[in-house]
């Protein structure tokens, strides 16, 4: 099904569900799995000097690294080749897509928050953006599965 699977994780249950499904697929097809977090422009550095702003970004990156490594280590028994990556991009969708393009990803597994109604109109969705622009297949997982 896929040799290189990318799982974008946003530290929510939706990311966990996508990761769980990706592990099942990777085990079955002996695929390599990459966990990715995109640190976007949502870190509030207003009023900070440059040094402090850089520190805030570093803190966020370290937090993300710890979180992803924790997931990776807790799945060592699964015998799946997992790597962890953190990138900075002002757009989470663009970050995921450029990473996929540059790393020969042939399947993106992403959790969808499934927003509906007014929230959907206002907020849009990362999964929706990835599906619209991705150059490889995208597997969207849902919370109820």
């Amino acid at each position, binding site marked *: 099904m896929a040799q290189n699977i990318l799982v974008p994780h946003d530290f929510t249950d939706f990311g966990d569900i996508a990761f769980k499904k990706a592990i099942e697929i990777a085990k079955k097809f002996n695929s390599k799995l990459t966990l990715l977090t995109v640190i976007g422009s949502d870190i509030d550095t207003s009023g900070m000097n440059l040094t402090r702003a850089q520190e805030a970004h570093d803190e966020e990156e370290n937090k993300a690294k710890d979180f992803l490594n924790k997931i990776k280590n807790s799945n060592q028994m699964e015998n799946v080749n997992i790597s962890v990556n953190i990138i900075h991009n002002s757009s989470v969708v663009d970050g995921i897509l450029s990473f996929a393009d540059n790393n020969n990803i042939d399947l993106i597994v992403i959790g969808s928050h499934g927003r509906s109604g007014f929230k959907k109109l206002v907020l849009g969705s990362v999964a929706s953006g990835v599906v619209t622009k*991705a150059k490889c297949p995208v597997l969207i997982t849902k919370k109820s599965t």
Partner: protein
Amino acid sequence: MTSVFKNILVPFNGTKGSQKAFNKAVPLATSVNASIFILTCIEKRQIFSFFKFKASNEEFEKERKIIEKQHIEMKTFAQEKGVVCSSNIVEGDHASSEILNFADKHKIDLIIMARTKFSSHKERIHYQSTLEDVFRNTACPILILV
């Protein structure tokens, strides 16, 4: 170990995209020992239909026969690869509702569809694409091919 996927749904509307989805479903079903459900909905409404639309009963039956023939070919292909495959033709108003209802009813754990076109801005305001409607509202995983 439980199977990765057991019941795969392929909504088929005769386009290259839906054929691509079926072509992907067969080897996947073979490797994970899953069953394939092919679903075609003959839509009653006319504008921006995902599947073909037919209003009268006579036209519906005529269309059904054409689709049945296509489904038989697909089923034969899948069965030759050792995959259990079922053919399903329904009549409905909205393709996405029929796909979602079918998925719920048949305990589908993977829907495979292909991204075939981008709707224009005006089109999107009035009619959400079937693919978008399905992936936003389905409770099961959906694999979207490009």
